[in-house]
């Protein structure tokens, strides 16, 4: 009898039991929401901080990568430089907000792939600067500080 009551009280679907569905949902979130999601519980954190989700986020706007450079060749490079999550936090995030702020801008003829390329280049420069230890341990080296500065709207 009690078991029946318990079965009625138990929710039909508990998302944590279905990690694959959870992953699919997380893949569609934006950066800020992903970070918030990572604070929920251990499982969510493990899923939300996995690099594959962030890769999805970074490459989302690219409808189809040019056949010349498939996404698979990008991944090892990005992983070596610090991963997609870091790439997003340091470069892509700022790029998207800056460029979105200027919808009629003259550069808008570029594709999302070009934007990603630019992010990658800046990311690489950042990695290189960090190698030298010129600024020691700062969280963001100076070469990307211009991205963090507030833009005059």
């Amino acid at each position, binding site marked *: 009898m009690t078991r029946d009551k318990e079965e009625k009280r138990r929710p039909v679907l508990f998302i944590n039991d279905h990690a694959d569905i959870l992953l699919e949902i997380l893949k569609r979130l934006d950066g800020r929401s992903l970070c918030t999601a990572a604070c929920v519980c251990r499982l969510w954190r493990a899923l939300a901080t996995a690099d594959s989700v962030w890769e999805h986020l970074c490459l989302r706007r690219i409808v189809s990568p040019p056949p010349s450079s498939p996404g698979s060749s990008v991944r090892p490079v990005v992983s070596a430089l610090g991963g997609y999550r870091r790439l997003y936090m340091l470069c892509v995030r700022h790029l998207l907000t800056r460029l979105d702020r200027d919808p009629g801008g003259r550069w808008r003829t570029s594709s999302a792939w070009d934007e990603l390329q630019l992010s990658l280049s800046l990311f690489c420069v950042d990695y290189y600067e960090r190698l030298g230890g010129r600024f020691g341990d700062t969280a963001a080296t*100076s070469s990307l500080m211009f991205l963090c500065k*507030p833009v005059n709207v």
Partner: protein
Amino acid sequence: MKKRDHQDSCSSSYGGDSGGPSSYGKAKVVWEDELDASGGMDELLAVLGYKVRSSDMADVALKLEQLEMVMGQEDGASLSQLQNDTVHYNPSDLSAWVQTMLSEVNAPLTDPAQSLQTDLDFSSLQNHVNAESNQTQLRFSDDSEYDLSAIPGLAAYPPRSPPPPPMQQPEPPRNKRLKTAIGSSSTNPNLPSSSSSSSTVIAAPESTRPVVLVDSQEAGVRLVHTLMACAEAVQQENLKLAEALVKHVGLLALSQAGAMRKVATCFAEALARRIYKIRPQDPLEATYNDILQMHFYETCPYLKFAHFTANQAILEAIGTTNRVHVIDFSLKQGMQWPALMQALALRPGGPPAFRLTGIGPPQPDNTDALQQVGWKLAQLAETIGVKFEFRGYVASSLADLDPAMLDLGSPEMETISVNSVFELHRLLACPGAIEKVLGCIKAMKPKIVTIVEQEASHNGPVFLDRFTESLHYYSSLFDSLEGSGLSPDSEDMMMSEVYLGRQICDVVACEGPDRLERHETLAQWRSRMGSSGFDPVHLGSNAFKQASMLLALFSGGDGYRVEENNGCLMLGWHTRPLIATSAWQLAPTVGNQ
């Protein structure tokens, strides 16, 4: 050692420059002879009854301007006092008369030499210059009865008394309390003291407050005029006048704010160096120079733009080759190459083998800075999976390079490209050097040569033209620095200003083989490259798009403009282009391919 020999050979073959002033001086002597016939007085004004020496004309004009401004202010006290109390001696001697008028109105100022933001010891240098000018008859010898160093308003400026207590930089707020010309509601607490002190005959500087009754907006215009007048005086070798004017510039500069102030102080310092012959500047250690450039790299997009556009040109030129060899004339910290290596790593078909030869100046403490850069780049290359090789060559001047030393592969084996960012213009200081280097580049048989240079004409033969050009150029640069949104106290900002200030000193103060910053315009470089056997390569739309995107990321991005100019890309601030990237290839010759 090598550098000195090279410089000696340069200076001996560069006799033309040192011969210039002396021949100019001879013309001066002839002119002064003519003047002495009329007693040194200007003839036209003499007809009107005024006695003014021609040599003092500029100074008198300045004082008259000041007087006019003072009179124009609604300060009834000083005007009535001028009318009633002042005794004017010998009004036909225009300069002295104006002098006394001004002295009645303004309280004496402190010694402006101390408020100039330099650490030069003006007094000792002044004596030195005086002694020097007495010896040479070719200079302007000013033996008028009043002391020319009495800047308008300084009036009773007792030369022997000790200067009032130093009032330098801790007092800038006081200087800022300038009375605006007409109808301003801001009260100037200095004003009551000035009117009270001006009623007494001024004997000694009792009040040490600088009362410069000047409108700060007009001061900006006057600042520029004074700078130009000073440069003109320097051009005419009228060093006494120039000296007085440069001190005045220092004062006026303090009344400005922001970019204008910094530009003015930089140029004032450069002019002072030229006047007092403190040149060349202390040569900076190469590492310190690199640090300055790094800060400049971070504050504004010019260097990033240069690197990215050059990289794009290189990428497009190398196509699908398997081996790339880049010879970099301007390695510095190697900030250009990580982006290229990343692009190579993602190249369709896999990355080529990348060889980099970096040329750098000798280091004073024998540390191998080039090798350190090479090691860092190698680490990065290993991380992203690009085969990499580095070699560094130390050369104090690019003209010392010998292509045979560089161990180049043949063009079939590797695709060679040459890169130079802000380096080629230095070669113009030595005649023949640029031709030698261009010949050297041709001997390397590169597929592409990328050149980034400042877009300015700072290498003309006439000093005044150079001065005007550089004033506009660096004003734009400083404006863009200010627009970058960094706080003015940040290390990056200050270092960038030092970096630019050194360039200004070089352009304005140095001459001959010491003047290294000989910027030339894109058109001039085009003709030079064309006549040396290079054909232009058009930078494609990819480079343009990438550059525009990059600029959109910078705050103040609205101010920057990317322009395409016949296949070359120029980055500028508002309407003024500041740097230009161009790409070149060897012109096909008969019998070549």
